[in-house]
């Protein structure tokens, strides 16, 4: 049976509406998206031509008795990444590169694997079929060695051709879930209604979904699946209707990020994150908001700088008198990650985030969202989140 939403009164969303208004005003002030660094969806013929051009260059090198080489942007080098408040982390236009040579014993294998994946992409695009990165790995797992090799090469190719991965007909496996007030049409015509009681898997073809419809007042990104399921069980989407909930089940996959980006671009509704009060959770939040180093070349398609941190804030721990027995000491790894985040360029323009992180660093303690269950089993969905949303408890 379809789910019938029964949300709070309209006055409940006053602060949210004001927030949305300010976001829209900021968008208007900021103008259109910066040009030049975004990746556009390339047509199949464009992708095929690009690959053919690369092959021609290789053959020409060989004809000149020169060893062919690929020139690859250093995607994961901080020197090639800059921060812009409106975009997040993205690659600079003239970045440093490295050569993958065919005549070097160290890089010849990588050179060959890049060509191998080029040939597979060529076939996929030509036949208009799709494959996931995992599929590609399993075509010859012995040759590739491990999934990371395949993932890196695919990203390098995407960066090289300046097209999103989708244009290469390579999909990432979706692991995210959606729930709430959202309907859309998938590329193959399937109608999806996320208002059902159970969550819907994030589709693998985000670019292809159409006719998105929602009345949601906000989008809540939940870090963990456990918390997401708990909220579902507590009928949160109904109680806070109209709203949308998304989870990437930890570090989000590309499709989940693309979906969040698409929802923001389409509806410009406030986006909040609900993460654990620990460095890992904060990092996940930063990935949604500012992007990752590895995918910085596609930042314009993936980041939502408008995201706000709803909870669990380190300051909430003290404010709510969360029992100390529920807290966990920061490990050495946590400390290192926290220090690393504090040094990142985007934190400088987030003084409140910085302050929260400093509270965490000083206390040397972290807390999971589940710590709120020590206050009451449904504290999260009944008290914490509604209060936060009603009174603007986000930073």
């Amino acid at each position, binding site marked *: 049976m379809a789910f019938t939403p029964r949300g709070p009164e309209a006055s409940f969303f006053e602060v949210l509406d004001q927030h949305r208004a300010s976001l829209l005003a900021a968008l208007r002030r900021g103008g259109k998206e910066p040009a030049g660094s975004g990746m556009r969806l390339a047509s199949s013929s464009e992708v*095929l*031509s690009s*690959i*053919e051009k690369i*092959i*021609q260059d*290789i*053959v*020409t090198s*060989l*004809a000149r*008795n*020169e*060893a*062919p080489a690929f020139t690859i942007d250093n995607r994961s080098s901080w020197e090639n990444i800059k921060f812009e408040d409106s975009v997040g982390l993205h690659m600079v236009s003239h970045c440093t590169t490295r050569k993958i040579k*065919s*005549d*070097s*014993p160290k890089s*010849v*294998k990588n*050179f*060959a*694997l890049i*060509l*191998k994946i*080029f*040939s597979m992409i*060529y*076939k996929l695009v*030509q036949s208009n079929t799709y494959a996931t990165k995992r599929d590609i790995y399993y075509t010859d797992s012995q*040759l590739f060695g491990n999934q990371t090799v395949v993932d890196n090469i695919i990203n390098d190719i995407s960066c090289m051709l300046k097209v999103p991965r989708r244009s290469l007909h390579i999909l990432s496996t979706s692991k995210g879930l959606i729930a709430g007030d959202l309907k859309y049409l998938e590329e193959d015509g399937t109608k999806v209604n996320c208002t059902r009681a159970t969550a819907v898997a994030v589709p693998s073809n985000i670019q292809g979904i159409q006719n998105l419809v929602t009345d949601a007042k906000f989008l809540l990104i939940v870090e963990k699946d456990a918390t997401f399921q708990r909220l579902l069980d507590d009928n949160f989407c109904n109680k806070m209707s109209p709203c949308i909930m998304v989870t990437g089940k930890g570090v989000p996959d590309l499709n989940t990020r693309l979906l969040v980006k698409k929802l923001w671009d389409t509806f410009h509704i406030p986006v909040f994150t609900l993460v654990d009060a620990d460095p890992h959770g904060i990092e996940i939040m930063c990935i949604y908001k500012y992007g990752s180093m590895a995918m910085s070349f596609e930042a314009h398609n993936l980041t939502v700088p408008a995201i706000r941190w709803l909870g669990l804030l380190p300051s909430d721990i003290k404010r709510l008198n969360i029992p100390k027995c529920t807290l966990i000491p920061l490990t050495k790894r946590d400390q290192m990650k926290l220090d690393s985040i504090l040094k990142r360029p985007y934190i400088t323009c987030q003084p409140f985030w910085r302050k929260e992180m400093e509270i965490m660093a000083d206390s040397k303690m972290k807390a999971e969202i589940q710590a709120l269950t020590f206050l009451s089993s449904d504290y999260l969905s009944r008290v914490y989140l509604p209060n936060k949303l009603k009174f603007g408890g986000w930073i």
Partner: protein
Amino acid sequence: MEGPAVAVCEILKYLIIHQRCETAGVSKGALLEGQLVISIEALNSKHQANTLHCVTTIAAAGSIYGGLVLKKFLKDMQSILPGFFANLNWTSEEASHSQDASGLRSFQVIFEADVNPRTLMTDSLVIKNFLRKVISVLPKIRFNFSVKVNGILSTEIFGTPKFDATELPCSRIHPVLGHPVMLFIPDDVVGVGLLGELTLTPAVALCPCPKVFSNQLNRISSISIFLYGPSGLPLMFPNSEQPTTAVFKDTSYFIDGKKCRLCMVPSLDLSLDRGSVLPDVSYQVESGEGEEQSQNMDPQGQTLLLFLFVDFHRGFPVQKMELWGVHTLLSTHLSAILRESHSVVQDCIQATVDWALEQHHQAVKAHQKLQASLSVAVNSIMSIMTGSTNSSFRNTCLQTLQAADTQEFGTKLHKSFHEVTQHRFLYHCSHEVKQQLLPEKNEAEQNTEETHENSSLELLAVIRVDTVALPGFGYYSVEYWAVESAPGCRHPLHLHGRYGGGTGEQTENKRLKRGSQAVEETRAFRSAGALSPSEAASRRAEPTTAPLTSSRSRTDPGSGLEDTLWLQEISNLSEWLSSGPGP
């Protein structure tokens, strides 16, 4: 009657030892240079049937002569070759010093003997073998050897190798130098009166370079051992002490065959008449029982070359006759000395062989990895090319490689990739040497620093093994640079090898042409090779620089790339030899 071979070899040895002693302490690190002409003119004897009257002339020019006193020479020869000396006629009035037009003093000695034709033929081969071994160590000495029998002349020049434009991607071998070990002298040999130490330093190389055949799992099909004494001169054994009859018959003496999985049997192919240098000891390696030859096994296999350098050290410069005495001692008692020192010698050689085989194994793996990668690259390009519906793209690709069709395109693509990558392998073959020299630097420097004040570097020689015949691979020569430190230094030797190759068939076509003054081009496989690993830094402590250029300048200019790589290696070696802590 005994032929001229023994006398020729002994005289040449005498001249070289003399030169070494004269130059030691004067020009450190300088390679011996000069030209020696050996000619044998034989005519049918008027007095005896089936006998040739041979007049042998040995003439020396250049610094090889410097300081030689004729009277002393003749007196020494009388003691060195007593039996021979008494039986031959020395044309003493023609033994003279003369000065050639260039102003260099020259030296000439002539002696006569009656020999039967078979003896002369055998002796000629013995002399050639000796010369080939000598020039392996002393490349700056050139030998011009001619034999004229009843007017038919054949001449051969040793020391100016010419190289074929081989098809081999790497015309080098990469010798691995082992640690020198002190040899123990048995009690019954001590009485000779040696006042010093004998050390043995092994050098191991695989021939041809593993990279040549790295697409196959090369097996070791034979082992060749070359024995050298002080001053880099090959050891010559009297018949009673033939290496094959003594300790060398024990195939397990040098190398633990089981450990290396090599089933060795002494080789019976001891023929000198094959236009190549004959190793002192040779083993064939047979497949072990139950071992199946995989499809990838190269049926011809590789040869493991083992060079053993026995040297003599003491606290002060060694005299000529002492060195001569050591040679004599080694020639007659080497087996006993090696038996006495079996444990240390075997450990030393085994370690060096293990390292060389490990290098070989790594090289094979690296090359296999390269081949596999190139195969993937080619197949990927072919997949795109053949699957493309863009005729313009396909035609452009075909035209670029000048291929008529897709099949030819694939072949040319494969070949092109090989060519561009093999070039890098040549580079790597030469430059991996430098990296191999870096380990053990600190340890070696410490040792050499301690002994530096009392030691001096003396260049042993440049070793060049000329025309080693390798079944199926033809004729190769190896060039090595060897630098010996004086007594007290722990690690005396550098080795630096390179080779070039040719096929036996080709060499056959260029053999001596009787009736003309054709010069056989010795197909050196000249390897500018790898300086041995692990030992270099220890030698680097000494400031002496090896003169390394002149022999290379005589090389065949046909291979410009080899020249460049060779000169690069030479200059590198000079730097290493000259660098290091000062006194």
